[in-house]
């Protein structure tokens, strides 16, 4: 009788274990999550602040870096990043903004807005993404023109953040640099093709932001 119960118990364990399912990691990281947000006070049915812009500034060849693991504050290909990631991504963002009708200028040429690109790694004050169809809120904070960014709550992930900062209306905004558009792309830490998938996600960020245009 004991053998019968052992057999049934074993069968039960086998079936139970085969029923406990979850997606495979390799399937989960097939695409990066791309979230974009915009300031509804300056981008809405009545107005679009991008129509008032003409020029932008974007630092070339470097990327902001905020990490709780290392002390570096920028990423540079071949310096503290092994491989080609920073330059292709910065170039692609530049290309997308230019394709939207804006002209890249230098910092001393009075740009209308700045585009910031920052990688957040294991940063504990950052909101990542919301469930599709569900929006939990966002508390933006901008600490300075080149200062490290951003927001609320938690993340143990590696996320690429692209932000558009309003320079043109600095004084009108009470001497504040408002973030009017943000894109969060992740997770960079688990992807099997970091540069390729990031470029694909950058493209998607602009595709899903049709208002990001001069006209």
């Amino acid at each position, binding site marked *: 009788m004991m053998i*019968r119960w052992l057999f049934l118990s074993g069968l039960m364990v086998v079936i139970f274990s085969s*029923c406990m*399912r*979850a997606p495979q990691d390799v399937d989960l990281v097939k695409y990066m999550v791309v979230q974009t*947000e915009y*300031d509804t006070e300056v981008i809405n049915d009545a107005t679009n602040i991008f129509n008032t812009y003409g020029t932008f500034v974007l630092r070339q060849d470097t990327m902001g870096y905020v990490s709780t693991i290392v002390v570096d504050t920028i990423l540079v290909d071949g310096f503290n990043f092994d491989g080609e990631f920073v330059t292709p991504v910065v170039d692609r963002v530049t290309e997308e903004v230019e394709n939207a009708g804006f002209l890249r200028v230098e910092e001393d040429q009075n740009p209308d807005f700045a585009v910031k690109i920052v990688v957040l790694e294991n940063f504990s004050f950052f909101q990542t993404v919301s469930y*599709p169809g569900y929006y939990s809120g966002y508390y933006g904070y901008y600490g300075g023109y080149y200062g490290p960014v951003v927001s609320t709550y938690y993340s143990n992930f590696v996320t690429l953040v692209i932000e558009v900062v309003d320079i043109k209306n600095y004084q009108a905004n009470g001497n504040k640099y408002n973030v009017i558009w943000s894109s969060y792309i992740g997770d960079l830490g*688990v992807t099997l093709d970091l540069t390729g998938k990031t470029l694909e996600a950058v493209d998607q960020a602009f595709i899903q932001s049709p208002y990001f245009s001069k006209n």
Partner: protein
Amino acid sequence: MFRILISILFVFSAVRTKAQLYQSAFHVGWNTLVPLSDKEYTGKTSSAGVRVGFSKFISDRFGFGIEGSYNTLDDYVPRRTYEIPGGAITTDVYNYLYYFTIMANGQYYFKQGERFIPYASLGMGIAFSEYRIFYNVFEDTDNRQSFVLRPEVGTLFRIKEYSSWGLKSSLSYDFAANKSDYFGVDNFSGISFQFGIVLFTD
């Protein structure tokens, strides 16, 4: 409803029973679940399921027991863009429903003493539903508990005339009152097909 079922079982247990070969049965089996509701969340048939139960025969015709079941339902939503207030999000999503039930049931056996023992049963209990979505490395979860009702028809089959081993197959319908407002998922219903092994005991 539960009180009525208990009362019925109590009355039947007072009926003098004919001598039976076995007094109880333990079963474990594979369960396939076809969701009938919320197919936008998990529309695929799930064969990742198990049922385990114990039945006590109180007469030739009647029995009662307890049963637990577990199924994982899942579905894949290809990459698409969702508009949200003040923005948008693009991702593919894996929807999962981990569906666990535990219930008491009463059984009516259409005939005994033969190798095929067809029956009908009605079970009631609690369903525990864990709705979980996976997208990239991110997850969202909502846990719900609710009442569940399960009418069932099936048959037991003795492998040999006096064998304590048998097989079981059944067809049942689940209705669980759970719902997830968070994921916009309503009451759950589905049809199950079970095939398993039975161990008859004294």
